[in-house]
């Protein structure tokens, strides 16, 4: 008896047009989440539930309004549509407001492997056992691992539907599962925690509990008894986990929304050399099985691969329909939104292309410097490029990791950091939609003692 989600989305668009909208787009998402948490060898919590929601954006000429609801009944949809129309009437005309060029609408043709049935088939007992095993491996790795914040196994099954008044209607399913553990190490009054996490769209691609537990323990242990180094300027290596965070800050600087507002230090730099030759950045939403992939973006524009920076030269911003129109460019298929509202700009798989050196080689090339394993409270000013963050990591002496450091900050300016990027590691792994290999930056300011 239940209507399919795509029919509900189509009918919401139709209702909007019937009620006076000149254009409309409707997003529906449905999901089922599960998580099992264990701590100190006991089950701590189990959570399981499903939810769904719909959102609509309507255009009345150049006016736009939007609304969302978790009530997908005919009455709920009706009230969502009329709410959006009421809101549209109080906005002011925006000459750039609209829907995508119909020619850009479509669906990436290949199989993106976003959904795998193996995740749906996982038994609760199995998921709990995986989490218990990962924690056990971490706890028994070393006598100094004395405690744990727990381990968890999560899974998610979702559907996303999008329809607009230009006739586009599409749907895709996603699956994901993840295993993580947070061990606590203690020695001589020093207490440190770290974590390891593995996520995948199919169960078989998850790292084993042994691997997850072992790596988490290793990371927590190597942080014990940190020192605070003196204030100085040195080369800094970001390992993949922290390099990915830095790359996330850089994403904001190529987001078309920051560009048209002149809120990015990369405004007006298209075609210019803004980084060292070592840097090539790609955004690609068409890579099978990855977290940043999708057949179409949140405006129904087909997904694609965009070269953002090529050997240091800024080749493209990342754009949705609106920001493209503002800048006189074409959308790059990076529209992103929750359920309601105008689309923003979001990443596909946004990554730094791997170099050829091993991380070991990067470290070996540094006489004295910092290997950053944790960024805390990173603040990147997209407007000016100023960058400052709390950090912890390992001090490099004579090309080797020597001892842990913490309670320090690292600072610089993204403009200079990009230019002084000396080497990119070969160790690129796609653990989330933003991915980077290790990066060696020529010089940053370390604040310590």
């Amino acid at each position: 008896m239940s209507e399919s989600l795509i029919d509900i989305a189509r009918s919401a668009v139709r209702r909007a047009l019937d009620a006076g909208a000149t254009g409309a787009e409707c997003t529906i998402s449905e999901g089922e989440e599960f998580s099992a948490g264990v701590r100190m060898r006991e089950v701590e919590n189990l959570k399981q539930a499903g939810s769904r929601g719909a959102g609509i954006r309507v255009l009345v000429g150049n006016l736009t309004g939007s609304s969302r609801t978790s009530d997908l009944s005919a009455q709920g949809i009706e009230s969502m549509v009329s709410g959006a129309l009421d809101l549209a009437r109080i906005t002011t005309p925006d000459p750039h407001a609209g829907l995508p060029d119909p020619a850009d609408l479509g669906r990436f043709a290949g199989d993106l492997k976003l959904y795998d049935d193996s995740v749906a088939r996982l038994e609760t007992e199995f998921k709990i056992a995986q989490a218990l095993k990962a924690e056990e491996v971490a706890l028994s790795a070393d006598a100094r691992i004395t405690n744990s914040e727990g381990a968890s196994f999560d899974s998610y099954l979702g559907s996303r539907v999008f329809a607009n008044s230009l006739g586009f209607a599409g749907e895709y399913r996603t699956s994901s599962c993840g295993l993580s553990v947070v061990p606590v190490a203690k020695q001589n009054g020093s207490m440190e925690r770290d974590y390891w996490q593995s996520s995948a769209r199919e169960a078989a691609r998850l790292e084993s509990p042994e691997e997850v537990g072992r790596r988490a323990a290793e990371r927590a242990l190597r942080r014990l008894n940190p020192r605070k180094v003196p204030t100085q300027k040195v080369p800094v290596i970001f390992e993949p986990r922290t390099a990915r965070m830095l790359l996330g800050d850089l994403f904001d600087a190529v987001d078309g929304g920051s560009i048209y507002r002149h809120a990015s230090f990369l405004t007006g730099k298209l075609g210019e050399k803004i980084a060292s030759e070592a840097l090539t950045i790609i955004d690609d939403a068409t890579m099978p099985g990855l977290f940043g992939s999708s057949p179409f973006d949140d405006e129904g524009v087909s997904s694609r691969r965009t070269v953002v920076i090529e050997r240091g030269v800024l080749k493209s911003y990342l754009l949705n329909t609106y920001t493209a129109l503002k800048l006189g460019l074409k959308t790059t298929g990076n529209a992103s939104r929750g359920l309601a509202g105008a689309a923003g700009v979001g990443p596909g798989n946004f990554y730094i292309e791997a170099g050829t050196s091993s991380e070991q080689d990067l470290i070996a090339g540094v006489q004295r410097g910092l290997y950053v394993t944790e960024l805390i409270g990173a603040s990147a000013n997209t407007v000016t490029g100023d960058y400052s963050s709390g950090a912890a990591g390992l001090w490099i002496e004579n090309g080797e990791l020597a001892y842990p450091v913490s309670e320090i900050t690292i600072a610089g300016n993204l403009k200079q950091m990009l230019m002084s990027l000396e080497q990119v590691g070969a160790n690129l792994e796609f653990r989330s939609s933003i991915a980077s290999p290790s990066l060696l930056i020529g010089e940053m300011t370390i604040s310590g003692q």
Partner: protein
Amino acid sequence: MGSPPSFLTSFFAGKFGITERDLESYLSEALSAGGEYADLYFEYLSNTSIGIDEGIVKSASESVTLGVGIRVIAGERTGYAYSDDLSPEKIRKAARVAALIARGPASVVKTGFQEASKHNLYPMITSPHEVGLAERVDLVKRADAAARAYDSRVFQVIANYADSVREVLVASSDGRLSFDRQPMARMGVAALARETDGVPQQGYSGGGGRVTLDFFLNEKTPEHFAKEAARQAIVQLSAVDAPAGESIVVLGPGWPGILLHEAVGHGLEADFNRKGVSAFSGRIGQQVASPLCTVIDDGTIGSRRGSLNVDDEGVPTQKNVLIENGILRGYLQDTLSARLLKSASTGSGRRESYQHIPMPRMTNTYMLAGQSDPEDIIRSVPKGIYCATFGGGQVDITSGNFVFQATESYLIENGKLTRPVKGATLIGNGPEALKYVSMVGHDLQLDEGIGICGKEGQSVPVGVGIPTVKIDKMTVGGTAA
């Protein structure tokens, strides 16, 4: 104003026909496989937001979300499920899923609810839809105009206004019944300024609380926030590089209270301490700050962003002393931690929504005023940095290291504020940092009401406050020698 509202007149009874008998039956279902405790959290949240950008009211949006979260506690274990459909069969189904955490014979639910006492901290409003949309649009237009009028160097302005009403109903198997209507409104303004063809700089200001639109017409106007955002952007135009290394740091009053939230607040949440993973674990009664410091977490301040009549477990909020004259006094407890630590809830159980398991959280965290004149504090510093406004902060509760981002700061040279400096991250260690507090001003201020606290993926609104405070040693993450 008549008799206090009773359950029969409450939102969920009225709109969804939920009876006390229904609540008992759902709780029985939740405890059908055993367990000592179960509770239900019904939530109906409606939200409206308006935004102006480039002088155009580009966005207007509203949302309605509703659902019920069901929790079962068996020993240290928690089972949780939720439903966004309030039909009896869907709620029962969710209750059976939550029940899976326990493995035993059914537990008995106490019959007959007792309505919990609660505060009356914020205005009772009907629904945001009953206030005109046009009035809201006017707020963002006024903010846009005021920021541009402040200085001709301001060239971009974004202003947003959002308000919401959250209806909640909590019922527990030990007979607690509680409901509340929680308003929230917030305005934010961001401005960009530049000299002719120069490098742009940004400023941001915002505020609000558990208030209605009237607050922005009568107390803190759009012009107030707009001028502040514009002023900050203009100040940044002449900012020099922030210093690098250890320095004397003076925090201005108000929002810099985020220091307390990060340095001590999170570390005192009972879940971390029950598990022994906080740098403050086992330190009750110990000196963790200078004797000048008394730090409070208070959920009972009228209309504040972090305030609640009852917490998200239906327990009335309290004024909790965390640190008294430098001595660590207590933790923030939710129901689960209190049960396990054989203590009482401090009214600190909070959650982002019905989809989330509650945990101990802060409300409004601040330091009591001291004796010093703020001017004297600055005069006492030969060389240092004065932080007037902050961005956000973060803490690693295990090592105790915390950071916060100063967005408007000045050099202090020979007892005087001199040049503005660029934004910088400051870092310290929680149990150590406050030991270096050597002067506390008499000018306690609470922040304007923009704080959002994140913990384990859940965001909740909070407040902070602090008087002018001098910290003799802290690491400043700038780039200047």
